């Protein structure tokens, strides 16, 4: 395997060691956990596909979001807006189900089994996640690789990075060794924002935890609000995964997959070469 010569800065075409073992291990464990959690979570949602704000919320109360079917058409209703979703949500393949069998674990309606999957993989999210947080600060991965610098956060450089992404002009050569600022912000947002909120709002739905830690109810404004926030953050995580995968495809899937699997990444060639 070619390694970088030590007498010059790495340049486009060089194979560099980019992802450390802990990053790679956590990435794949977490990917597995998040995917199973999203899929089993959608089955759990199917048991009561209505979301509310506040401490309580049931069939006679006003939901702010619901996925349903009138028997012929599936719909997604957010506040007073109804979006027809036949074939995708509410009603698909002749079955009245908020999320279709293709994307849920288990594929058939089984709330008990979905909960069993969800709570098992929640451990796979939480334990490696906490270890990764811990390792991330100790090894300075967070401070060095993930935290955006003050320079990067200046509006002009943020705007430049947004324009670069929109034009699909990804960093090349030496600059591609580091995450760009949008990448950093989205990774930090997921690792220190969405994932912990998912865990805490999940715990807020537990009546046993609510009794012991009532501050969770105050933090999220009630069990039904926590359930809504859990769902919104799940949707944001799903959106992150889609954008993340599109970026991998655009940036070169083989090189990106090798990097996150073996650690070795080939720096993209400079454009003028």
């Amino acid at each position, binding site marked *: 395997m070619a390694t970088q010569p030590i007498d010059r800065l790495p340049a486009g075409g060089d194979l560099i060691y980019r992802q450390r073992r802990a990053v790679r291990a956590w990435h794949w464990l977490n990917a597995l956990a998040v995917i199973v959690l999203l899929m089993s979570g959608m089955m759990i949602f199917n048991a009561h596909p209505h979301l509310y704000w506040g401490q309580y919320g049931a069939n006679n109360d006003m939901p702010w979001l619901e996925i349903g079917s009138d028997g012929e058409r599936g719909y997604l209703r957010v506040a007073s807006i109804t979006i027809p979703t036949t074939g995708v949500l509410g009603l698909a393949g002749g079955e009245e189900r908020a999320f279709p069998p293709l994307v849920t674990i*288990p594929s058939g309606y089984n709330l008990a089994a979905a909960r069993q999957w969800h709570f098992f993989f929640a451990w796979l999210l939480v334990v490696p996640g906490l270890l990764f947080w811990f390792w991330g600060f100790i090894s300075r991965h967070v401070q060095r690789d993930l935290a955006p610098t003050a320079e990067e956060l200046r509006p002009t450089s943020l705007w430049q990075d947004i324009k670069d992404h929109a034009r699909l002009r990804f960093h090349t050569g030496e600059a591609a060794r580091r995450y760009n600022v949008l990448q950093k912000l989205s990774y930090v947002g997921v690792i220190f924002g969405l994932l912990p909120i998912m865990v805490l709002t999940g715990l807020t739905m537990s009546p046993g935890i609510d009794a012991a830690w009532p501050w969770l109810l105050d933090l999220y404004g009630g069990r039904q609000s926590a359930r809504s926030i859990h769902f919104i953050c799940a949707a944001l995580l799903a959106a992150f995964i889609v954008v993340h995968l599109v970026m991998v495809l655009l940036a070169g899937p083989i090189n990106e997959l090798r990097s996150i*699997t073996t650690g070795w990444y080939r720096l993209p060639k400079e454009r003028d070469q």
Partner: protein
Amino acid sequence: MTLLTRRRLIGSLGVGAGGLLLSGCDRIAASPKVQDVLGLGEGLTMRAQRLVTDRTALAREFAASDMSPVFRTNGNTMPASDAYQAHAANGFADWRLQVDGLVRRPQKVSLAQIRAMPARTQITRHDCVEGWSAIGKWTGLPLKLALDAAGVLPSARYVVFHCADDFDGAPYYESIDLIDAYHPQTILAWGMNDQLLSVGHGAPLRLRVERQLGYKQAKYVMRVEAVDSLARIGAGKGGYWEDSADYQWFAAI
């Protein structure tokens, strides 16, 4: 060598994830080995929750202004048995709550006697396993008082609630451990929202074991039995939904 094994590991993880995304997932999910592994998570969750939480903590009690305008019913709303319907027709005047099993003094108590005993009123949140919640006001006899009157033997480990309703002939029942049974908010409710408990909500008595999900809140409680093991009751998993659909006995999450 290490690289090969790692590659193989990663490869098999990839195949596993792919399998999950397809319908083959259900075959994997249904295999007894997978069920055993997933069951480990349930045991871990229960132990972890008991480790990090105070088992005597009280569930939040709400103000009257926080109550749900409509508290929906669910599960059975009218037990099918003739005996129950006869009791309901005459206002449960001849009905008796049985307290027995591993107790020194088995009891048969009338509803009038129960209502004459000290009562606790609490406005709490009812959480269905499906995801909805409703806040209601419950009034009833602390289960501790009923158990103390009967004198629970030291060999008892669980309290089982036998109910008048059934699903296709399988009687409804539920069970809790003694810590939950003696918890101050665990009551046999005979009143709801300042009225006598309605048949739809479980008259004459409904268990309220706050800090657990709705399927633990057994309605139509006819008999309270102290036992040392759940193995001999129903299919042995501690409750109707646990037996029939594999719902978790530990229903605090």
